[in-house]
């Protein structure tokens, strides 16, 4: 018992000093039970810098739940999620500064303008934006729409405002749940380019989508949930 603990302690130290070489995000044996139904069991994977992971699975197989677990919104019923050698619930705020989670819901306010929404997002992320906020809107092809409240925008445009966060906040890990819903072809292209850039920078992206994806210069890893 004691020896194992010591070994574990040694391992942790190694993780801390050589974090670049070891995996950034390690998921081991996680299980998710919702309302007495087992969604998935014993899911394990390791991600290193520059990795792109797609979560596959039919409806109801727990894709969104896995992303929510990875974001730390839910706790797994068993197993653990380790980021840079630490359980994510043990370093919540450090970890949360390193992730962007974009779920089914956009997390934007209809009554606010695009610019105001971005300002709130930046404040919540707790970091200074890399580029001016209106530039980010240009990037998602919403130039000139800064001062229009979101209630007057289409679903696709709202999704673009939500995705504009990827430009303004710095985070190593992106967790995207169906990022392409209600986006048109050009919107999809913008996001695909962004994903490729982020991977090239050494970021980690995990996303769930039904659509088959091809991204240049990036190999996509897959994980399959539910029965095959």
């Amino acid at each position, binding site marked *: 018992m004691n020896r194992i603990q010591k070994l574990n302690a040694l391992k942790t130290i190694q993780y801390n000093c050589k974090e670049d070489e070891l995996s950034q995000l390690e998921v081991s044996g996680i299980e998710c*039970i*919702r*309302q*007495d139904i*087992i969604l998935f069991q014993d899911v394990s994977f390791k991600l290193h810098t520059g990795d792109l992971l797609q979560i596959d699975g039919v409806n109801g197989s727990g894709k969104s739940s896995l992303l929510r677990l990875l974001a730390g919104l839910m*706790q797994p*019923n068993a197993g653990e999620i380790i980021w840079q050698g630490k359980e994510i619930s043990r370093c919540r705020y450090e970890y949360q500064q390193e992730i962007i989670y974009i779920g089914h819901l956009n997390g934007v306010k209809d009554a606010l303008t695009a610019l105001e929404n971005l300002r709130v997002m930046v404040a919540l992320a707790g970091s200074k934006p890399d580029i001016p906020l209106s530039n980010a809107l240009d990037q998602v092809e919403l130039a000139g729409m800064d001062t229009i409240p979101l209630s007057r925008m289409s679903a696709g445009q709202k999704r673009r405002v939500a995705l504009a966060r990827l430009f303004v906040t710095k985070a190593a890990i992106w967790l995207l749940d169906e990022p392409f819903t209600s986006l048109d072809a050009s919107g999809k292209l913008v996001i695909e380019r962004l994903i490729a850039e982020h991977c090239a920078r050494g970021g980690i992206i995990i996303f769930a989508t039904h659509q088959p994806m091809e991204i240049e210069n990036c190999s996509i890893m897959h994980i399959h949930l539910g029965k095959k």
Partner: protein
Amino acid sequence: MLKQFHRLVSPKYFYNLAVLLTPWFSWLTALLMIAGLYGGLVFAPADYQQGESFRIIYVHVPSAWMSLFIYIVMAVAGGVGLIWHIKIADVLAKSCAPVGASFTFLALATGSLWGKPMWGTWWVWDARLTSELILLFLYLGYMALQSAFEDRRVAARASAILALVGLVNIPIIHYSVEWWSTLHQGATVSKIDAPSIHIDMLIPLLIMALAFKAYFVTIVLLRSRTEILEYECHSTWVSELLNKVESKT
């Protein structure tokens, strides 16, 4: 020590322990209840002021004690479940609530029954009765919240927070109600648990209090057994258990 504790809080071990302990506590409850009731209803002398009707204290006072005691147990168990993620604590907290609410209701009902001959009315805004009523509301709120969630784990955690908030509030509620009642109507004849109680009356009262405690433990063990089985319905030991039961019948 720690190892033993971990074994104790494993659902399977706790379930077996509960199965083992339930009959013992049921018998203990029956014994104490008979002794206490005999002592209270037959053996103890009648009160010189209140006559025979004072005997209702043998139900009223222990259930009033239990109502608060169970709330504290429930909130502490909820807190333990919240902090250390111990399933058994969640299960215990959930099983406590209906028992506690029943005792609170019993205390209210007996208090009201006692009030009719004493005060000439079913209900007076006496401080103790009023705080007991608010306690009942707290229990009802807890149970309503517990049943509003579909996921067990979320339900357990959310209601644990409510129980803890209630626990912080209980002393405040108690003193505010006490203050309010003394200012409004002066001291009422709260002979119901006066300090100067005769020893012959006190002993049955204490036996009844123990009987209620034993009853509480029995019921909580029974309820938590069911809860554990539902909670753990995916685990292998539960399916083994079910197979065993099925093969027997």
